[in-house]
């Protein structure tokens, strides 16, 4: 007859710290017994103990039924426990919730204390069903005589409206009355609920604006004022006239309120409502900024935090006002509080423009390099320094956590690459910043740096020479190879370095040097994707260098050439047995080529022409050159055309769209006629209707493709429609087959069932699964520099810079029909693009049974007629049109 109470349980827990799990297991056993007791007191005590254990992470869902039992007692001290347990442990899928409907109804008509407990519990366990069933009672309760109950009923209304929006028409008039309630607390609660609702669905609450406005001008309750200002923040974008009306009271609030929280909300609402435009707006903005700036230097860190938040909102429209306080703000980046630093970082990146980008980025870099260090020398100098000597990682401040460093590094990159480098005036500077980042980041931002490097170099011709020289230094630096797979370094950046060195080695005076770096033995520790790039780049460099030698051949070069070729062959041999498929394949391919070259060199006799004509059959353009002067080994020219015949350019986002449909390509005829009406047309129509907005959405998601939508030529529309349809066939075919199979099985089963009549007809026309054309994607070329190329594809629009010509638009086809050489050129480039951009990813994503139809992408492949120019668009587009 001695049961543990909650207090005993807690004491026991404290006494048994060493053996807690055992103690709790024992306690739970006791609870299981007690909870079945007939004695309600005992049952409730057991439930209360369970709530405590639940907080510590033990499951109590098994006791849900007993919780309902406790809820149903008439005694309030037990009922409170029951409702507390329900609020703590019930979820939307707790099945006993449906048992509670009548119980709650009864409790709502009980004494005020019961009602309060019930309303509070109901707010936590509300479901759509409860909301539907309870709404009449709850609406009536909005007029309850006690303010306390009215408040609770109003707050519950929010949950009801969220779960069951249909009742809105009945609730709104009552809520409206409550805005005029005599009790200030009730009014505040109503404003609170309406604020939440207006955020979800502002247009429905515009009619209440006059009442809100009256409250705004008469109330002095800061808590409610904040909510009111927030409501106006949601409403004002919908009603321009409201903005005009709001301006005086808000200005009044901004200039008089001592509460920064209210000030912050006012500023926010001013910005959303566009109140800061025009001359009066400017003075208002000035007022806001000057008030906020005083908080920036406040000793209270909270005010500083809020001020930074608010300033971030003003910057986009009034950068010059905030710029006055740049020094203070930059100082906050080095604040000891990471919360402040994060907000300051946001603000600073919003402040960046062409004139201050370099100084701000330098400041951020300094933070990464050495916290609180004095502003260092220029980027170029620090680059020379880092490239020359090894930087020992400085001990981190306790607050300089890894995640913060990562955020900082990513921020530097995003600030610079904003709107296709709109703020970068000096790309050599930017390249050096990226290389600095590789050294000082100490976190893995390698992938981002890699993409940036490649993107910049591909877009900005003027920076290529500098880039190659810089990359040569990076490649030469063995310290970067010391932690080849580590999380604290950026090995991925090396992949960009190798690629740039290979692709643009013509910009380098003595490019053969690069070979040494590209083939150094240490690279074997790098990840296989990077090794593949290294190997490929080495071949590119040699190809370029060899062709250069051929231009001014001297037999003195011969030995050097032979050594270099030998060096590559040796390296390829090592990697030809790599475990990684990509590396192995590249190495094996190149090994084949270089064995060829070696053989040619071996048979070469200085000053005699007895080289084998390798080029005769595969490169007509070059065989003519070679034939003119065969004094050097002909294999010198073997490699170069493989890599440099066509320039690799960024591709415009709408390049695919500009391709005209080849004549004679009919996308509307069936390749295989559709199976006889596998699904009712209505279903198809439904699915189409469902899919269409979806495809549109995915297109919108790309953001940068907006231009395409505007283009809107008839071809694109037609094709778009087909794309939506065409994405379905694969799945539908499979589904149809599956369904047919299931039908056969079912018929088989029913055959022996005496309760079914079986017709003896053979199953009609099962679609032949094998006959369905399926796109073979495996055959697509797969290259390892895919991820890097991805960066080149992201073509963005933006303004141009003065000194550097940035290719922001990318390449797009200008011709209407594929013609021999150009077509080859294009397909050549296309082949070097990663297959994933062709992948008809969406084909498998729709599960709708629709007659078979092949997307244009496939057909283009199949006929081989379609021009493949626009290569590397993002997959969404490729498949959709």
């Amino acid at each position: 007859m001695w049961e543990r109470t909650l207090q005993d349980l807690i004491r026991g827990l404290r006494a048994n710290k060493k053996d807690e799990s055992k103690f709790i297991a024992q306690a739970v056993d006791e609870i299981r017994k007690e909870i079945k007791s007939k004695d309600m007191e005992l049952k409730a005590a057991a439930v209360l103990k369970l709530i405590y254990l639940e907080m510590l992470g033990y499951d109590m869902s098994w006791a849900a039924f007993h919780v309902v039992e406790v809820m149903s007692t008439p005694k309030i001290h037990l009922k409170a426990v029951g409702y507390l347990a329900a609020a703590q442990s019930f979820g939307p899928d707790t099945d006993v919730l449906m048992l509670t409907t009548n119980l709650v109804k009864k409790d709502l008509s009980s004494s005020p204390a019961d009602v309060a407990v019930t309303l509070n519990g109901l707010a936590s366990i509300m479901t759509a069903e409860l909301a539907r069933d309870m709404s009449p009672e709850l609406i009536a309760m909005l007029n309850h005589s006690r303010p306390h109950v009215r408040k609770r009923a109003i707050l519950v209304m929010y949950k009801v409206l969220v779960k069951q929006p249909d009742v809105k028409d009945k609730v709104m008039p009552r809520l409206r009355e409550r805005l005029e309630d005599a009790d200030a607390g009730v009014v505040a609660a109503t404003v609170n609920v309406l604020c939440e609702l207006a955020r979800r669905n502002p247009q429905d609450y515009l009619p209440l604006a006059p009442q809100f406005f009256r409250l705004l001008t008469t109330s002095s309750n800061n808590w409610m004022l904040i909510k009111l200002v927030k409501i106006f923040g949601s409403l004002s974008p919908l009603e321009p006239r409201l903005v005009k009306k709001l301006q005086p009271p808000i200005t009044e609030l901004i200039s008089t309120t001592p509460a920064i929280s209210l000030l912050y909300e006012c500023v926010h609402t001013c910005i959303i409502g566009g109140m800061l435009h025009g001359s009066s707006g400017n003075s208002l903005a000035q007022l806001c900024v000057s008030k906020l700036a005083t908080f920036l230097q406040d000793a209270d860190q909270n005010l500083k935090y809020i001020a930074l938040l608010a300033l971030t909102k003003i910057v986009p429209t009034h950068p010059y006002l905030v710029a006055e306080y740049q020094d203070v703000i930059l100082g906050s980046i080095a604040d000891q509080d990471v919360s402040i630093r994060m907000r300051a970082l946001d603000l600073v990146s919003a402040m960046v423009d062409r004139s201050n980008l370099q100084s701000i980025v330098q400041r951020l870099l300094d933070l990464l390099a050495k916290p609180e260090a004095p502003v260092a020398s220029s980027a170029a100098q620090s680059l020379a320094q880092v490239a020359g000597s090894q930087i020992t990682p400085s001990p981190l401040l306790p607050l300089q956590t890894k995640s913060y460093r990562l955020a900082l590094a990513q921020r530097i990159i995003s600030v610079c690459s904003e709107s296709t480098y709109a703020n970068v005036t000096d790309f050599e500077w930017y390249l050096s910043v990226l290389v600095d980042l590789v050294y000082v980041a100490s976190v893995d931002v390698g992938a981002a740096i890699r993409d940036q490097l490649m993107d910049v170099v591909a877009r900005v011709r003027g920076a290529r020479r500098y880039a190659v020289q810089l990359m040569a230094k990076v490649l030469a630096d063995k310290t970067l190879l010391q932690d080849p797979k580590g999380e604290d370094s950026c090995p991925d950046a090396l992949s960009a370095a190798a690629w740039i060195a290979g692709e643009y080695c013509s910009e380098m005076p003595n490019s053969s040097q690069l070979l040494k770096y590209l083939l150094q033995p240490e690279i074997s520790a790098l990840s296989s994707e990077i090794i593949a790039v290294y190997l490929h780049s080495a071949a590119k460099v040699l190809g370029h260098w060899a062709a250069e030698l051929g231009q001014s051949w001297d037999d003195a070069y011969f030995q050097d050439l032979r050594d270099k070729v030998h060096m590559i062959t040796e390296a390829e041999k090592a990697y030809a047995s790599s475990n990684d498929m990509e590396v192995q394949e590249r190495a094996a391919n190149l090994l084949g080529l270089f064995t060829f070259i070696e053989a040619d060199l071996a048979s070469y006799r200085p000053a005699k022409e007895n080289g084998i004509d390798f080029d005769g059959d595969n490169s007509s353009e070059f065989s003519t050159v070679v034939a003119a002067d065969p004094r050097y080994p002909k294999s010198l020219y073997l490699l170069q055309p493989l890599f440099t015949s066509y320039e690799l350019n960024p591709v415009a986002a709408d390049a695919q769209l500009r391709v005209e449909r080849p004549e004679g390509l009919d996308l509307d005829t069936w390749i295989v006629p559709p199976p006889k009406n596998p699904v009712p047309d209505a279903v198809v129509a439904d699915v189409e209707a469902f899919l269409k907005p979806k495809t549109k959405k995915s297109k919108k998601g790309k953001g940068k493709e907006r231009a395409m939508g505007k283009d809107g030529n008839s071809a694109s529309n037609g094709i778009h429609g087909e794309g939506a349809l065409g994405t379905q066939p694969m799945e539908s075919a499979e589904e149809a087959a599956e369904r047919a199979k299931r039908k056969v099985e079912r018929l088989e089963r029913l055959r022996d069932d005496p309760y079914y009549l079986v017709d003896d007809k053979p199953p009609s026309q099962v679609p032949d699964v094998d006959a369905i054309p399926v796109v073979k994607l495996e055959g697509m070329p797969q290259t390892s520099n895919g991820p890097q190329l991805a960066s080149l594809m992201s073509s963005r629009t933006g303004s141009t810079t003065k000194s550097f010509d940035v290719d922001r638009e990318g390449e797009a086809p200008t011709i209407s029909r594929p013609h021999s050489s150009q077509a080859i050129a294009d397909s050549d480039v296309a082949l070097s693009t990663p297959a994933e951009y062709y992948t008809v990813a969406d084909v498998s994503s729709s599960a709708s049974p629709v007659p078979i139809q092949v997307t244009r992408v496939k057909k283009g492949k199949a006929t081989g007629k379609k021009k493949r120019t626009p290569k590397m668009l993002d997959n969404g587009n490729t498949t959709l049109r």
Partner: protein
Amino acid sequence: MIHAVLIFNTSGVPRLTKFYSTVHHSPQTLVQKIFSLICTRPAGLCNFLDAPELEEFLGKKQREDERLRVVYRSYATLHFVFLVDAAESELGILDLIQVFVESLDRAFENVCELDLVFHFDEVHHILAEVIQGGLVLETNLDEIDRSVKQAAQARKTSYASANPLSLGGSSMGQRSAGLQTPLGWLTGKLTGVGTI
């Protein structure tokens, strides 16, 4: 709205967890994560927890509007943490925490961690007078205090009528003290444990 109210001590042991919406982490991992971030912050820093790892933890994909913010305040051995969205004002929530703690203080008379440990149901009831279903019910301290006292009184009367021999004055948790052991009753009175 307010999405969660958490109270834990300086060792990260939860003293109260109240969720008003489903957060996509178990309460325990959430408490641990927030605790690990708060415990490294020295006093004097701001009361808004903002860290890159927290953004990921709470779900980064959301719009700026829906980003959850962590507002916390530390009192002696306890951290009071509120998880709120953009519909709440950060500084307002900071005040609300203060109001909540002051009402705890009034109810328990010089509240300390042990009060919260042994009367965690009471704490829930007091919180219920400040916040209901994630929305602020009342911010006026006197009003809250009155409601708390009223509700406690109702429970007390109900308890007394259900246990006629318990001599009253005791809430639900005092069941053992109610078992007619005069000594237990006396200790209860002397230590003032049951005088809520």
